[in-house]
């Protein structure tokens, strides 16, 4: 157990050090990216197209940060097994720790960006829900499972289908617009509401926004998101386990 923890620790540390060489700079980028998108969407939808959502920048920020965590975890996990090919070919250790360290890396960046979100919440004179501390954990866990599950699936499949990265980037873009990030879930016409149920990220993003904007807690929505994420995690994990014996052969 102790050893297991150490393995995850060194792999994550490597991931962070290698990606940024300097973690302060990495932190800066992980904040700038969603903020730049928030500005862009604000200009496009609020200033030019005049959507009727109050505090639209805040509305965007509370959803863009969690979205970025998910999307970065998935897209960077695509290459994570290839980058560690030499290890996989020689050493017998639990391979699922490689994508895990990648997802942990992005999770840490997300957690570190929570104060930034809260600063914006206060700038706009709002206050987050009383259940914020508990809520952070309750929404974090399913999103972590979801990100990890999808990362397990795409990282392993990518070894076999080397053009999967293109498909994943299209998929992420589609999913982004299917998720209520730039619009609110109540803006969907009645006959399109089902989109929310097709998309595992939708309930989580709604929960994040409600949490940060101080709106009411919806246990059903969270439970739905949790079960959805758990299912996807289990599917991704079993796929990964099934394929992991072949990793050393294809690399």
């Amino acid at each position, binding site marked *: 157990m102790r050893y297991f923890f150490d393995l995850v620790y060194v792999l994550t540390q490597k991931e962070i050090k290698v990606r940024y060489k300097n973690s302060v700079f990495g932190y800066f980028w992980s904040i700038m990216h969603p903020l730049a998108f928030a500005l862009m969407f604000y200009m496009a939808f609020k200033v030019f197209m005049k959507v009727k959502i109050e505090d639209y920048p805040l509305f965007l920020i509370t959803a863009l940060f969690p979205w970025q965590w998910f999307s970065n975890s998935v897209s960077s996990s695509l290459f994570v097994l290839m980058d560690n090919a030499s290890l996989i070919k*020689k050493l017998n250790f639990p391979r699922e720790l490689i994508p895990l360290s990648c997802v942990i890396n992005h999770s840490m960046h997300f957690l570190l960006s929570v104060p930034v979100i809260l600063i914006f919440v206060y700038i706009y004179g709002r206050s987050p829900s009383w259940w914020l501390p508990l809520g952070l954990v309750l929404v974090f866990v399913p999103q972590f499972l979801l990100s990890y599950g999808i990362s397990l699936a795409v990282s392993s499949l990518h070894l076999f*289908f080397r053009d999967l990265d293109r498909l994943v980037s299209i998929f992420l873009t589609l999913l982004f617009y299917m998720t209520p990030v730039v619009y609110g879930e109540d803006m969907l016409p009645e006959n399109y509401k089902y989109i929310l149920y097709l998309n595992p990220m939708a309930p989580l993003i709604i929960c994040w926004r409600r949490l940060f904007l101080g709106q009411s807690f919806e246990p059903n929505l969270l439970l739905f998101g949790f079960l959805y994420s758990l299912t996807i995690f289990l599917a991704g994990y079993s796929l990964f386990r099934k394929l992991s014996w072949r990793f050393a052969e294809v690399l």
Partner: protein
Amino acid sequence: MSQAAVIFDKVSKSYPFYTHITAGLKKFIFTLPSSLKELKSKSFEALRDVSFEVYRGETFGIVGKNGAGKSTILGLIAGVLKPTKGRVIVRGRVSPLLELGAGFHKELTGRENIVLNGVLMGMTRREVMKKMDSIIEFSELWDFIDQPLRTYSSGMVARLAFSVVAHLDPDILLIDEVLAVGDLSFQKKCLKKMEEFKQRGVTIIFVSHSAEDIKKVCDRVMWIENHTVHKIGRPHEVMEEYTFTKALPEPKMML
């Protein structure tokens, strides 16, 4: 030297040709029937009906041409590959000595790489920290240890790699063609360390192209030819025939 540490029992290993699917999902789907058929029927046989035993405490050499199946054997022992047919039994903790730089990262410093590599090889972080000074001492890389690995020469990387392995406590040690790098004095040091492991009763499996090294350290040698066992025997006998039939010069593996 009675009980076997590694047993290969009629082991065959074949790889499907993954080229069909690694070419991409698009191609795979558009030519699905033929792709599936090809995946099932065509495969590359890396090992055929290989049987041997490595006794506990023995130093066992493996020789053979490039592509003969040596790396596949090491992969099977390390547990990263599964045999297609037959059984592989390994008793004890296996530590592979990674080839040049594998398991290292060039952006990390020597010290950070020692921790990463040590933990990957099965030590806890605390154990690595405890042995840190001794590892650095062994590597003789004092001046460079806090520099990123990309500033190292290949010989220095090999030193660092061997220094980590020298501080492990494995039952079975896999060494794949690493003594070729590094200067003479370090090579000597490595051979001495292998002697030490041997004294401790560690089983060593040693892949090399150097007939000299094989003769120096091995108790028995297996010669792999055409994906199967050609001969197993005393180093002198096997190596004599091996170097004789190998009269056609092969590109040297020296780095």
